[in-house]
Protein backbone atom coordinates (compact mmCIF):
# COMPACT_ATOMS: atom_id res chain seq x y z
CA UNK A 1 0.00 0.00 0.00
CA UNK A 2 1.28 3.45 -0.92
CA UNK A 3 0.16 6.48 1.07
CA UNK A 4 -0.88 9.68 -0.67
CA UNK A 5 1.81 12.29 -0.74
CA UNK A 6 0.91 15.65 0.81
CA UNK A 7 0.78 17.39 -2.56
CA UNK A 8 -1.54 14.74 -3.98
CA UNK A 9 -3.88 15.13 -1.00
CA UNK A 10 -3.80 18.91 -1.37
CA UNK A 11 -4.46 18.78 -5.10
CA UNK A 12 -7.40 16.44 -4.51
CA UNK A 13 -9.05 18.87 -2.10
CA UNK A 14 -8.05 22.08 -3.89
CA UNK A 15 -10.82 24.24 -5.26
CA UNK A 16 -10.99 27.23 -7.53
CA UNK A 17 -10.85 30.66 -5.97
CA UNK A 18 -13.29 33.38 -7.06
CA UNK A 19 -15.88 31.09 -8.59
CA UNK A 20 -18.77 32.99 -10.21
CA UNK A 21 -22.01 33.09 -8.24
CA UNK A 22 -25.46 33.25 -9.87
CA UNK A 23 -27.00 36.73 -9.72
CA UNK A 24 -30.52 38.05 -10.21
CA UNK A 25 -30.16 40.69 -12.92
CA UNK A 26 -32.73 42.66 -14.89
CA UNK A 27 -31.25 44.09 -18.06
CA UNK A 28 -32.17 46.80 -20.56
CA UNK A 29 -32.87 45.83 -24.14
CA UNK A 30 -29.24 46.61 -25.05
CA UNK A 31 -28.01 44.15 -22.42
CA UNK A 32 -26.85 46.70 -19.81
CA UNK A 33 -27.87 45.67 -16.29
CA UNK A 34 -30.69 47.73 -14.78
CA UNK A 35 -31.12 45.99 -11.41
CA UNK A 36 -28.75 43.56 -9.71
CA UNK A 37 -30.02 41.41 -6.85
CA UNK A 38 -33.02 43.75 -6.51
CA UNK A 39 -30.87 46.89 -6.27
CA UNK A 40 -30.99 49.61 -8.94
CA UNK A 41 -27.80 50.16 -10.90
CA UNK A 42 -26.52 53.75 -10.50
CA UNK A 43 -23.55 53.69 -12.88
CA UNK A 44 -22.00 51.22 -15.30
CA UNK A 45 -18.34 52.15 -14.90
CA UNK A 46 -16.81 49.78 -17.39
CA UNK A 47 -17.75 47.03 -19.77
CA UNK A 48 -15.55 44.39 -21.40
CA UNK A 49 -15.78 41.00 -23.06
CA UNK A 50 -13.89 37.82 -22.35
CA UNK A 51 -13.80 35.30 -25.19
CA UNK A 52 -11.51 32.36 -24.49
CA UNK A 53 -11.15 28.59 -24.84
CA UNK A 54 -13.18 28.70 -28.03
CA UNK A 55 -11.12 25.78 -29.28
CA UNK A 56 -12.33 23.52 -26.40
CA UNK A 57 -15.64 21.87 -25.49
CA UNK A 58 -16.17 24.52 -22.81
CA UNK A 59 -15.75 27.86 -24.55
CA UNK A 60 -15.95 31.06 -22.47
CA UNK A 61 -17.96 33.91 -23.91
CA UNK A 62 -18.78 36.56 -21.27
CA UNK A 63 -19.79 40.20 -21.18
CA UNK A 64 -18.58 41.82 -17.94
CA UNK A 65 -19.94 45.00 -16.32
CA UNK A 66 -18.22 46.93 -13.56
CA UNK A 67 -21.10 48.68 -11.80
CA UNK A 68 -22.01 50.81 -8.81
CA UNK A 69 -25.43 50.16 -7.28
CA UNK A 70 -27.79 52.82 -5.90
CA UNK A 71 -26.71 51.70 -2.42
CA UNK A 72 -23.14 52.70 -3.30
CA UNK A 73 -21.98 49.08 -3.42
CA UNK A 74 -19.42 48.33 -6.08
CA UNK A 75 -19.73 45.00 -7.89
CA UNK A 76 -18.89 43.16 -11.09
CA UNK A 77 -21.44 41.05 -12.96
CA UNK A 78 -21.19 39.18 -16.20
CA UNK A 79 -23.56 37.67 -18.66
CA UNK A 80 -22.72 34.26 -20.02
CA UNK A 81 -23.51 34.82 -23.69
CA UNK A 82 -23.70 31.09 -24.39
CA UNK A 83 -26.95 30.70 -22.43
CA UNK A 84 -29.11 33.39 -24.09
CA UNK A 85 -30.26 36.75 -22.74
CA UNK A 86 -33.33 35.71 -20.84
CA UNK A 87 -32.04 32.50 -19.27
CA UNK A 88 -32.42 32.68 -15.50
CA UNK A 89 -29.00 31.20 -14.92
CA UNK A 90 -27.13 33.39 -17.36
CA UNK A 91 -25.97 36.19 -15.02
CA UNK A 92 -23.21 35.88 -12.42
CA UNK A 93 -21.30 38.04 -9.98
CA UNK A 94 -17.56 37.70 -9.70
CA UNK A 95 -14.58 39.69 -8.53
CA UNK A 96 -12.75 40.44 -11.76
Amino acid at each position, binding site marked *: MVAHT*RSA*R*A*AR*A*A*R*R*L*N*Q*PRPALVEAH*ADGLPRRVNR*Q*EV*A*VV*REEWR*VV*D*RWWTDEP*VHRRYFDI*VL*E*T*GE*HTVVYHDDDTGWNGSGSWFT*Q*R*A
Partner: protein
Amino acid sequence: MLAAVVIPAFDLRAALRPRPRLQSAPAALAPLPGKDQLVGSVTGAAEAKGVRPGMRLGEALAMCPELVLVEQDPATAEQAWEEILRRLEDAGFGVEPVEPGLCYFDAKGVERLYGGLEPALKRALAAVGTAWEPRVGAAERRFAALAAANVARPGQALIVSDDRARSFLAPLPLQLLPLERERYEELEELGVRTIGQLAGLPGNAVAERLGPAGRRAWSLARGEEHGRIAPRKPATAIHETLEFPEAVGNELTLRRGLGVLLDRLLARPERAGRPPRKLAVWARLVGGASWRRTVTLREPTTDPARLRAALGAKLLELPAPALKLRLEVGELAEYTGEQLELNGVDGHGGDGFSAEGEAGRARLREGLRQVRAAVGAGGVSTVVEVAPWSRIPEARALLVPRDD
Protein backbone atom coordinates in the same frame (compact mmCIF):
# COMPACT_ATOMS: atom_id res chain seq x y z
CA MET B 1 -50.05 53.42 -1.97
CA LEU B 2 -47.10 54.95 -3.82
CA ALA B 3 -46.81 58.71 -4.02
CA ALA B 4 -45.01 60.96 -6.48
CA VAL B 5 -43.96 64.51 -5.58
CA VAL B 6 -43.58 66.76 -8.62
CA ILE B 7 -42.26 70.32 -8.81
CA PRO B 8 -42.59 71.43 -12.46
CA ALA B 9 -39.67 73.40 -13.96
CA PHE B 10 -37.67 72.84 -10.79
CA ASP B 11 -34.37 73.95 -12.38
CA LEU B 12 -35.88 77.30 -13.38
CA ARG B 13 -37.57 77.83 -10.01
CA ALA B 14 -34.25 77.17 -8.25
CA ALA B 15 -32.41 79.60 -10.56
CA LEU B 16 -35.09 82.26 -9.92
CA ARG B 17 -34.97 82.00 -6.13
CA PRO B 18 -32.71 85.04 -5.73
CA ARG B 19 -34.94 86.96 -8.22
CA PRO B 20 -38.52 86.06 -7.25
CA ARG B 21 -39.84 89.05 -9.25
CA LEU B 22 -39.03 87.20 -12.47
CA GLN B 23 -41.29 84.28 -11.55
CA SER B 24 -44.30 86.19 -12.85
CA ALA B 25 -42.42 87.59 -15.88
CA PRO B 26 -41.78 85.83 -19.19
CA ALA B 27 -38.49 84.04 -18.44
CA ALA B 28 -36.71 80.90 -19.61
CA LEU B 29 -33.54 78.99 -18.79
CA ALA B 30 -30.75 79.95 -21.18
CA PRO B 31 -28.97 77.24 -23.17
CA LEU B 32 -25.63 76.04 -21.82
CA PRO B 33 -22.57 77.44 -23.64
CA GLY B 34 -21.44 75.09 -26.38
CA LYS B 35 -24.69 73.12 -26.37
CA ASP B 36 -27.67 73.25 -28.71
CA GLN B 37 -29.28 76.70 -28.65
CA LEU B 38 -32.54 75.49 -27.10
CA VAL B 39 -34.30 77.16 -24.19
CA GLY B 40 -34.88 75.15 -21.02
CA SER B 41 -37.83 75.38 -18.63
CA VAL B 42 -40.09 78.43 -19.01
CA THR B 43 -42.32 80.44 -16.66
CA GLY B 44 -46.11 80.48 -16.99
CA ALA B 45 -45.95 84.03 -18.42
CA ALA B 46 -43.52 82.89 -21.14
CA GLU B 47 -45.68 79.87 -21.91
CA ALA B 48 -48.70 82.16 -22.29
CA LYS B 49 -46.77 84.01 -25.00
CA GLY B 50 -46.11 80.80 -26.92
CA VAL B 51 -42.60 79.94 -25.67
CA ARG B 52 -42.17 76.19 -25.08
CA PRO B 53 -39.31 74.32 -23.37
CA GLY B 54 -36.93 72.89 -25.98
CA MET B 55 -37.76 75.63 -28.51
CA ARG B 56 -34.86 77.16 -30.50
CA LEU B 57 -33.58 80.33 -28.85
CA GLY B 58 -34.11 82.48 -31.97
CA GLU B 59 -37.66 81.26 -32.35
CA ALA B 60 -38.40 81.88 -28.66
CA LEU B 61 -37.08 85.46 -28.83
CA ALA B 62 -39.04 86.12 -32.02
CA MET B 63 -42.16 84.82 -30.28
CA CYS B 64 -41.56 86.86 -27.13
CA PRO B 65 -38.98 89.72 -27.55
CA GLU B 66 -39.17 90.64 -23.84
CA LEU B 67 -38.19 87.09 -22.79
CA VAL B 68 -35.64 87.15 -19.94
CA LEU B 69 -32.96 84.47 -20.25
CA VAL B 70 -31.90 83.06 -16.89
CA GLU B 71 -28.47 81.44 -16.56
CA GLN B 72 -28.59 77.78 -15.52
CA ASP B 73 -27.45 77.10 -11.96
CA PRO B 74 -27.33 73.30 -11.56
CA ALA B 75 -25.42 73.37 -8.27
CA THR B 76 -28.00 75.65 -6.58
CA ALA B 77 -30.81 73.47 -7.98
CA GLU B 78 -29.15 70.33 -6.66
CA GLN B 79 -28.60 71.92 -3.27
CA ALA B 80 -32.21 73.13 -3.04
CA TRP B 81 -33.43 69.67 -4.07
CA GLU B 82 -31.27 68.05 -1.41
CA GLU B 83 -32.79 70.38 1.20
CA ILE B 84 -36.30 69.36 0.09
CA LEU B 85 -35.43 65.66 0.24
CA ARG B 86 -34.02 66.10 3.73
CA ARG B 87 -37.18 67.87 4.91
CA LEU B 88 -39.26 64.98 3.53
CA GLU B 89 -36.99 62.47 5.26
CA ASP B 90 -37.21 64.42 8.51
CA ALA B 91 -40.99 64.12 8.24
CA GLY B 92 -40.64 60.33 8.01
CA PHE B 93 -40.91 59.74 4.25
CA GLY B 94 -38.42 57.31 2.72
CA VAL B 95 -37.85 59.07 -0.60
CA GLU B 96 -36.53 57.73 -3.87
CA PRO B 97 -35.28 60.74 -5.86
CA VAL B 98 -35.48 60.39 -9.65
CA GLU B 99 -34.32 63.84 -10.75
CA PRO B 100 -34.48 67.35 -9.26
CA GLY B 101 -38.20 68.07 -9.07
CA LEU B 102 -39.42 64.45 -8.96
CA CYS B 103 -39.30 61.85 -6.20
CA TYR B 104 -41.39 58.92 -5.00
CA PHE B 105 -42.18 57.51 -1.58
CA ASP B 106 -44.25 54.66 -0.24
CA ALA B 107 -47.06 56.12 1.88
CA LYS B 108 -47.88 52.80 3.56
CA GLY B 109 -45.38 53.28 6.38
CA VAL B 110 -46.42 56.85 7.23
CA GLU B 111 -50.21 56.70 6.79
CA ARG B 112 -50.68 55.57 10.36
CA LEU B 113 -48.23 58.14 11.63
CA TYR B 114 -50.32 61.00 10.25
CA GLY B 115 -53.78 59.43 10.65
CA GLY B 116 -54.49 58.44 7.03
CA LEU B 117 -53.26 58.78 3.48
CA GLU B 118 -54.54 62.27 2.81
CA PRO B 119 -53.07 63.87 5.96
CA ALA B 120 -49.76 62.12 5.15
CA LEU B 121 -49.73 63.59 1.63
CA LYS B 122 -50.60 67.04 3.01
CA ARG B 123 -47.69 66.67 5.41
CA ALA B 124 -45.41 65.84 2.47
CA LEU B 125 -46.59 68.96 0.62
CA ALA B 126 -45.94 71.06 3.73
CA ALA B 127 -42.46 69.54 4.08
CA VAL B 128 -41.58 70.55 0.53
CA GLY B 129 -42.82 74.11 1.14
CA THR B 130 -45.57 76.09 -0.56
CA ALA B 131 -43.07 78.39 -2.31
CA TRP B 132 -42.13 75.51 -4.60
CA GLU B 133 -45.78 74.88 -5.58
CA PRO B 134 -45.42 71.09 -5.27
CA ARG B 135 -48.04 68.57 -6.40
CA VAL B 136 -48.50 65.06 -5.04
CA GLY B 137 -50.14 62.10 -6.76
CA ALA B 138 -50.85 58.77 -5.06
CA ALA B 139 -51.81 55.45 -6.64
CA GLU B 140 -50.99 51.76 -6.41
CA ARG B 141 -48.60 52.07 -9.35
CA ARG B 142 -45.72 54.43 -9.98
CA PHE B 143 -46.84 55.70 -13.35
CA ALA B 144 -50.40 56.38 -12.20
CA ALA B 145 -48.98 58.28 -9.19
CA LEU B 146 -46.75 60.31 -11.49
CA ALA B 147 -49.61 61.07 -13.86
CA ALA B 148 -51.82 62.14 -10.93
CA ALA B 149 -49.10 64.47 -9.64
CA ASN B 150 -48.70 65.97 -13.11
CA VAL B 151 -52.38 66.84 -13.41
CA ALA B 152 -52.81 68.01 -9.81
CA ARG B 153 -52.97 71.74 -9.05
CA PRO B 154 -50.16 73.42 -7.08
CA GLY B 155 -50.40 72.33 -3.45
CA GLN B 156 -52.94 69.61 -4.25
CA ALA B 157 -52.73 65.90 -3.36
CA LEU B 158 -54.57 63.74 -5.90
CA ILE B 159 -55.33 60.12 -5.01
CA VAL B 160 -56.21 57.57 -7.71
CA SER B 161 -57.59 54.23 -6.55
CA ASP B 162 -56.46 51.12 -8.43
CA ASP B 163 -59.92 50.31 -9.82
CA ARG B 164 -60.22 53.66 -11.57
CA ALA B 165 -56.54 54.03 -12.55
CA ARG B 166 -57.11 52.98 -16.15
CA SER B 167 -60.06 55.28 -16.67
CA PHE B 168 -58.08 58.10 -15.01
CA LEU B 169 -55.12 57.57 -17.35
CA ALA B 170 -57.18 57.13 -20.54
CA PRO B 171 -57.83 60.82 -21.44
CA LEU B 172 -54.37 62.05 -20.45
CA PRO B 173 -51.89 63.13 -23.17
CA LEU B 174 -49.21 60.77 -24.43
CA GLN B 175 -46.48 63.20 -23.33
CA LEU B 176 -46.70 61.81 -19.80
CA LEU B 177 -45.23 58.52 -21.05
CA PRO B 178 -41.45 58.07 -21.11
CA LEU B 179 -41.00 58.13 -24.89
CA GLU B 180 -38.71 60.00 -27.25
CA ARG B 181 -40.10 63.05 -29.03
CA GLU B 182 -39.99 61.25 -32.41
CA ARG B 183 -42.18 58.48 -31.00
CA TYR B 184 -44.86 60.93 -29.85
CA GLU B 185 -44.86 62.48 -33.29
CA GLU B 186 -45.07 59.05 -34.92
CA LEU B 187 -48.03 58.13 -32.71
CA GLU B 188 -49.75 61.46 -33.34
CA GLU B 189 -49.40 60.94 -37.08
CA LEU B 190 -51.19 57.64 -36.56
CA GLY B 191 -54.00 59.45 -34.75
CA VAL B 192 -53.00 58.22 -31.28
CA ARG B 193 -53.07 61.22 -28.94
CA THR B 194 -54.11 59.91 -25.54
CA ILE B 195 -52.86 57.23 -23.17
CA GLY B 196 -56.19 55.43 -23.48
CA GLN B 197 -55.87 55.22 -27.28
CA LEU B 198 -52.41 53.71 -26.95
CA ALA B 199 -53.62 51.23 -24.31
CA GLY B 200 -56.35 50.08 -26.72
CA LEU B 201 -53.82 49.00 -29.39
CA PRO B 202 -52.55 45.40 -29.61
CA GLY B 203 -49.29 45.05 -27.63
CA ASN B 204 -47.43 43.14 -30.34
CA ALA B 205 -48.23 45.77 -32.95
CA VAL B 206 -46.95 48.54 -30.64
CA ALA B 207 -43.75 46.60 -29.92
CA GLU B 208 -43.19 45.95 -33.61
CA ARG B 209 -43.69 49.59 -34.55
CA LEU B 210 -42.07 51.38 -31.58
CA GLY B 211 -39.63 48.82 -30.16
CA PRO B 212 -39.06 47.94 -26.47
CA ALA B 213 -39.56 51.54 -25.25
CA GLY B 214 -42.95 51.63 -26.98
CA ARG B 215 -43.91 48.28 -25.51
CA ARG B 216 -43.03 49.54 -22.03
CA ALA B 217 -45.05 52.73 -22.59
CA TRP B 218 -47.97 50.56 -23.70
CA SER B 219 -47.71 48.51 -20.48
CA LEU B 220 -47.66 51.71 -18.43
CA ALA B 221 -50.68 53.03 -20.32
CA ARG B 222 -52.57 49.84 -19.39
CA GLY B 223 -51.55 50.22 -15.73
CA GLU B 224 -49.62 46.97 -15.81
CA GLU B 225 -46.51 48.22 -14.08
CA HIS B 226 -46.10 47.56 -10.37
CA GLY B 227 -42.80 49.05 -9.34
CA ARG B 228 -41.43 49.31 -5.87
CA ILE B 229 -39.89 52.25 -4.11
CA ALA B 230 -36.23 51.99 -3.20
CA PRO B 231 -35.71 54.77 -0.63
CA ARG B 232 -32.27 56.32 -0.68
CA LYS B 233 -30.00 56.29 2.32
CA PRO B 234 -30.09 59.84 3.71
CA ALA B 235 -26.94 61.62 2.56
CA THR B 236 -24.26 62.67 5.00
CA ALA B 237 -24.01 66.40 5.64
CA ILE B 238 -20.26 66.87 5.75
CA HIS B 239 -18.71 69.58 3.63
CA GLU B 240 -15.88 72.07 3.70
CA THR B 241 -15.67 75.36 1.78
CA LEU B 242 -12.79 77.56 0.72
CA GLU B 243 -13.33 81.12 -0.51
CA PHE B 244 -10.61 82.65 -2.66
CA PRO B 245 -9.80 86.38 -2.32
CA GLU B 246 -9.96 86.60 -6.11
CA ALA B 247 -11.04 84.28 -8.93
CA VAL B 248 -8.68 81.34 -9.42
CA GLY B 249 -8.25 79.52 -12.71
CA ASN B 250 -4.75 78.21 -12.12
CA GLU B 251 -4.80 74.42 -11.86
CA LEU B 252 -2.01 74.23 -9.29
CA THR B 253 -3.73 76.68 -6.93
CA LEU B 254 -7.04 74.88 -7.34
CA ARG B 255 -5.39 71.53 -6.59
CA ARG B 256 -3.77 73.00 -3.48
CA GLY B 257 -7.13 74.38 -2.40
CA LEU B 258 -8.68 70.97 -2.93
CA GLY B 259 -5.89 69.41 -0.85
CA VAL B 260 -6.67 71.78 2.04
CA LEU B 261 -10.39 70.96 1.81
CA LEU B 262 -9.62 67.25 1.72
CA ASP B 263 -7.45 67.43 4.85
CA ARG B 264 -10.19 69.38 6.68
CA LEU B 265 -12.88 66.96 5.53
CA LEU B 266 -10.94 63.88 6.60
CA ALA B 267 -10.39 65.45 10.02
CA ARG B 268 -14.14 65.91 10.65
CA PRO B 269 -15.28 63.88 13.68
CA GLU B 270 -18.73 63.13 12.12
CA ARG B 271 -16.97 60.76 9.77
CA ALA B 272 -16.29 58.45 12.74
CA GLY B 273 -13.47 56.74 10.90
CA ARG B 274 -15.61 55.71 7.93
CA PRO B 275 -14.01 56.25 4.52
CA PRO B 276 -15.94 58.28 1.92
CA ARG B 277 -17.51 56.31 -0.92
CA LYS B 278 -18.96 59.24 -2.88
CA LEU B 279 -17.69 62.84 -2.99
CA ALA B 280 -18.72 65.98 -4.83
CA VAL B 281 -16.65 69.03 -5.82
CA TRP B 282 -18.61 72.24 -6.15
CA ALA B 283 -17.44 75.65 -7.36
CA ARG B 284 -18.98 79.11 -7.60
CA LEU B 285 -17.67 80.58 -10.84
CA VAL B 286 -16.89 84.12 -11.93
CA GLY B 287 -20.14 85.64 -13.20
CA GLY B 288 -22.30 83.81 -10.64
CA ALA B 289 -22.74 80.43 -12.33
CA SER B 290 -22.01 77.23 -10.44
CA TRP B 291 -20.37 73.92 -11.30
CA ARG B 292 -20.52 70.52 -9.62
CA ARG B 293 -19.03 67.10 -10.26
CA THR B 294 -19.62 63.87 -8.33
CA VAL B 295 -17.03 61.13 -7.94
CA THR B 296 -17.87 57.58 -6.85
CA LEU B 297 -14.77 55.81 -5.66
CA ARG B 298 -13.98 52.32 -6.82
CA GLU B 299 -12.99 51.50 -3.23
CA PRO B 300 -13.84 53.78 -0.31
CA THR B 301 -10.59 55.17 1.07
CA THR B 302 -9.14 57.77 3.41
CA ASP B 303 -5.80 57.82 1.59
CA PRO B 304 -5.37 61.55 0.75
CA ALA B 305 -3.14 60.76 -2.25
CA ARG B 306 -5.76 58.51 -3.86
CA LEU B 307 -8.56 60.97 -3.08
CA ARG B 308 -6.54 63.85 -4.54
CA ALA B 309 -5.91 61.84 -7.70
CA ALA B 310 -9.60 60.99 -8.09
CA LEU B 311 -10.88 64.52 -7.43
CA GLY B 312 -8.05 66.54 -8.98
CA ALA B 313 -8.85 65.26 -12.45
CA LYS B 314 -12.33 66.79 -12.19
CA LEU B 315 -10.88 70.27 -11.62
CA LEU B 316 -9.61 70.23 -15.20
CA GLU B 317 -13.25 70.36 -16.30
CA LEU B 318 -13.87 73.74 -14.58
CA PRO B 319 -15.27 75.98 -17.34
CA ALA B 320 -14.24 79.29 -15.71
CA PRO B 321 -12.16 80.63 -12.78
CA ALA B 322 -13.63 79.83 -9.37
CA LEU B 323 -14.40 82.19 -6.50
CA LYS B 324 -15.36 79.48 -4.06
CA LEU B 325 -14.56 75.76 -3.87
CA ARG B 326 -16.48 73.24 -1.79
CA LEU B 327 -15.94 69.56 -1.13
CA GLU B 328 -18.92 67.47 0.02
CA VAL B 329 -19.16 63.91 1.24
CA GLY B 330 -22.04 62.30 -0.63
CA GLU B 331 -21.89 58.97 1.10
CA LEU B 332 -19.72 57.21 3.67
CA ALA B 333 -18.91 53.50 3.74
CA GLU B 334 -20.49 51.56 6.58
CA TYR B 335 -17.23 50.13 7.88
CA THR B 336 -14.22 51.68 9.58
CA GLY B 337 -11.47 49.09 9.15
CA GLU B 338 -9.77 47.65 6.12
CA GLN B 339 -8.50 44.06 5.82
CA LEU B 340 -4.92 44.26 4.60
CA GLU B 341 -2.92 41.47 3.01
CA LEU B 342 -0.97 39.25 5.41
CA ASN B 343 2.33 39.45 3.59
CA GLY B 344 5.52 37.66 4.52
CA VAL B 345 3.89 34.94 6.59
CA ASP B 346 5.78 32.14 4.87
CA GLY B 347 9.07 33.99 5.03
CA HIS B 348 9.47 34.87 1.36
CA GLY B 349 6.72 37.38 0.68
CA GLY B 350 6.57 41.08 1.61
CA ASP B 351 7.44 42.50 4.97
CA GLY B 352 4.00 42.83 6.52
CA PHE B 353 5.22 41.14 9.69
CA SER B 354 8.76 42.42 9.72
CA ALA B 355 7.95 44.88 12.49
CA GLU B 356 7.13 42.02 14.77
CA GLY B 357 9.59 39.56 13.21
CA GLU B 358 9.68 35.96 14.35
CA ALA B 359 7.44 36.67 17.33
CA GLY B 360 4.65 37.79 14.99
CA ARG B 361 5.02 34.70 12.81
CA ALA B 362 4.95 32.47 15.87
CA ARG B 363 1.72 34.11 17.02
CA LEU B 364 0.22 33.65 13.58
CA ARG B 365 1.21 29.96 13.52
CA GLU B 366 -0.38 29.49 16.90
CA GLY B 367 -3.52 31.27 15.69
CA LEU B 368 -3.72 29.00 12.63
CA ARG B 369 -3.25 25.94 14.85
CA GLN B 370 -6.19 27.05 16.96
CA VAL B 371 -8.34 27.62 13.87
CA ARG B 372 -7.54 24.08 12.69
CA ALA B 373 -8.34 22.69 16.12
CA ALA B 374 -11.69 24.51 16.09
CA VAL B 375 -12.90 23.80 12.56
CA GLY B 376 -10.94 20.65 11.68
CA ALA B 377 -8.64 19.73 8.83
CA GLY B 378 -9.08 21.93 5.77
CA GLY B 379 -9.98 24.93 7.88
CA VAL B 380 -6.87 26.80 6.76
CA SER B 381 -5.97 27.15 3.10
CA THR B 382 -3.34 28.82 0.99
CA VAL B 383 -4.01 30.71 -2.22
CA VAL B 384 -1.87 29.21 -4.97
CA GLU B 385 -1.65 31.16 -8.18
CA VAL B 386 -1.82 28.78 -11.11
CA ALA B 387 -2.50 31.07 -14.04
CA PRO B 388 -2.38 34.72 -12.85
CA TRP B 389 -2.30 35.88 -16.45
CA SER B 390 -5.62 34.22 -17.32
CA ARG B 391 -8.49 36.41 -18.53
CA ILE B 392 -10.89 34.05 -16.74
CA PRO B 393 -10.92 35.16 -13.08
CA GLU B 394 -11.68 31.73 -11.58
CA ALA B 395 -8.77 30.13 -13.49
CA ARG B 396 -6.14 32.32 -11.88
CA ALA B 397 -5.79 30.77 -8.43
CA LEU B 398 -6.62 27.69 -6.38
CA LEU B 399 -7.47 27.44 -2.71
CA VAL B 400 -5.33 24.60 -1.36
CA PRO B 401 -5.91 23.24 2.17
CA ARG B 402 -2.85 23.56 4.35
CA ASP B 403 -2.24 21.00 7.07
CA ASP B 404 1.29 21.91 8.21
